[in-house]
């Protein structure tokens, strides 16, 4: 067990899978010679060569299309989109093609590919580099969508995603690449369809994924000081959405907060809330509270940006309000 930053855990997963399986190759903008915009692919071109680490033109549609066609012909591509905002340029390939090919061709082929892409704000990158769109993909049958929030999960889920026979959207977060944590060495696989409880508690359930998991964990630690025992459920598996740990938790705590970095409307929290209402309505003592980004395009100004994205204080205030402890 080593302590690694998220970016290095991801790098380790890529390296291990490329060594294990010759059919795994990487493609994306500046992932090779430049070592990757966020350095996740650092050193891999040097180690594996240009055939297996393919620097592409800045042309998102060709990146995803190439990955799909290579996957159908027997390879296991891992495509990097520099930010999730850029993937909009390639949405036809992701949704109309990657997600639907297997079904519309009657199961005659499969599309085993991974699309890694970071979302998330807080770096003054403005309205075209800061958003979180995992719900867009989680809406689509045929895609798997995961968004890990710890280095260990990042490694284990990326390895599992590369071995999966379906198109997997692997959502990273710019704000977590430097976050450190213990990461098991070597063969460490985390299933793509299992959520888990990251912190036990009795009074209130907080569902969060990706960077908001870290925010939720920090908030839970603060709440404990004030005598509130919060259970944090990691919603890293967004599609298929594993609701079991969240439902179990709500049955115990009877109160639920969802936290996401994207906009709330039609969002991850909305889906979780609906499922909880369907499956555990009678256990709830209060309406589900949803926390998300202000519904504005991400502003550049630091002060405005700070209030536009959710943080620890929002979770604490909401938890107290839900428990009538203001």
């Amino acid at each position, binding site marked *: 067990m080593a302590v690694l930053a998220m970016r290095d855990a991801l790098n380790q997963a890529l390296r291990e899978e490329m060594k294990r399986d010759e059919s795994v*190759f990487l493609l994306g903008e500046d992932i090779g010679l430049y070592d990757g915009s966020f350095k996740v692919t650092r050193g891999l071109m040097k180690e594996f060569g240009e*055939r297996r680490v*393919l620097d*592409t*033109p800045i*042309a998102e*549609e*060709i990146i*995803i*299309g*190439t*990955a*799909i*066609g*290579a*996957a*159908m*012909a*027997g*390879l296991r*591509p891992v495509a990097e989109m520099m930010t999730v905002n850029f993937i909009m340029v390639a949405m*036809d*390939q992701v949704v*109309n*093609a990657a997600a639907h*090919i*297997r*079904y*519309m*061709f*009657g*199961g*005659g*082929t*499969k599309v*085993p590919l991974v699309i890694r892409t970071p979302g998330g704000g807080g770096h003054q990158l403005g309205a075209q580099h800061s958003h979180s769109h995992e719900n867009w993909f989680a809406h689509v*049958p*045929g895609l*798997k969508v995961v968004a890990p929030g710890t280095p260990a999960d990042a490694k284990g889920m990326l390895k599992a995603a590369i071995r*999966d*026979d*379906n198109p997997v959207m692997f959502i990273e977060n710019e704000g977590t690449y430097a976050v450190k944590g213990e990461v098991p060495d070597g063969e460490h696989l985390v299933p793509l*369809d299992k959520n888990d409880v990251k912190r036990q508690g009795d009074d209130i359930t907080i569902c969060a994924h990706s960077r908001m998991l870290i925010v939720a964990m920090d908030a839970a630690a603060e709440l404990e000081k004030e005598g509130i025992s919060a259970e944090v459920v990691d919603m890293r598996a967004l599609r*298929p959405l594993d609701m079991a740990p969240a439902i179990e938790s709500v049955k115990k705590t009877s109160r639920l907060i969802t936290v996401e970095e994207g906009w709330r409307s039609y969002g991850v929290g909305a889906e979780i809330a609906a499922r909880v209402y369907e499956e555990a309505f009678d256990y709830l003592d209060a309406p589900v509270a949803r926390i998300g980004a202000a519904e504005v395009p991400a502003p550049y100004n630091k002060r405005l940006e700070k209030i536009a994205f959710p943080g620890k204080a929002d979770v604490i205030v909401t938890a107290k309000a839900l428990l009538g402890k203001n």
Partner: protein
Amino acid sequence: MKVEQRPTDTTPKEALTDKTTLLKLYREMLLIRRFEEKTAEMYQAAKIGGFCHLNIGEEATIVGIISALRPADYVYSTYREHGHAIAKGIDPKAVMAELFGKETGTSRGRGGSMHLFSQEHRFYGGYAIVGEALPIACGTGYAINYQEKDEVVMSIFGDGATNIGAFHESLNVAKLWHLPIVFVCVNNLYGMGTAVNRASAVTEIWKKACAYDMTGERVDGMDVLAVRRITDQLVAQARNQHEPSLLECLTYRYRGHSMSDPDTYRGKDEIKEWQTRDAILSLGEYMKNQKMLDDEEIQKIDEEVTAQVEEAVKFAEESPEPDPKDLYRDVYADEAAS
């Protein structure tokens, strides 16, 4: 729309004189013609749903390009692809069954007219988003090089697709990465109802290859032998030198864009004019002049392919519908996730 023919291939017709080959080309073109005529009939009888785009008129282009491929070569196509699938070797029964939405169809009734597919025949699909399959074809080309195989990818699309970004991104990387691809533009002069000169700044589509320092050719898409000869060259170039190319085949669809197209944007005279150059009739005439075929044999071939089409309809009629319990099947490769 008036177009100037620019056959770049000056090889005499005699270069392809092998009777067996010519008979095969003739038979395939006629099979596709009869299949599509029957498809129109079945659509009007409401046996086929959705959109339905016919290949009638384009047979020389289809058979000319696809017959140049080996079985292990890949074809990516569009939503106007019934004939492409048949030319690549898929049984017309499976194609008709797919149009009928049956479990025995190429895509088990989940795809329909626009989404035929066969792994076995390396027919990698009909795609209904214009230009979408070109980047995907590039990925298969990349996989061929990656696996050090000597296969070729043929990416077929219409004139309309050459104005979309995906076309340009694809030609760029195909050349940049030395992909073994032949891009074939089936220029039937109209993107739906919009004539090429109303949609493209460059109406000689083969010239678009120049931007990528790529071989570009234009051929008379109503002349199956001319199409076949030039495609042979371009396929060899892709296979042996890993050099992609763009081939423009000038052809014409006698019917509307789809079965629901009233065809008001082009003159009846124009349609008649193209029909005078019908590829099947001309090859028949040529073979008769060469004493390879007589009227009796032509009649016999027609009866045989017509029977084959009737058999396809019978097969489709008698095939089972997909089971409702299989609605969720194949959303994912692992059934647990579906």
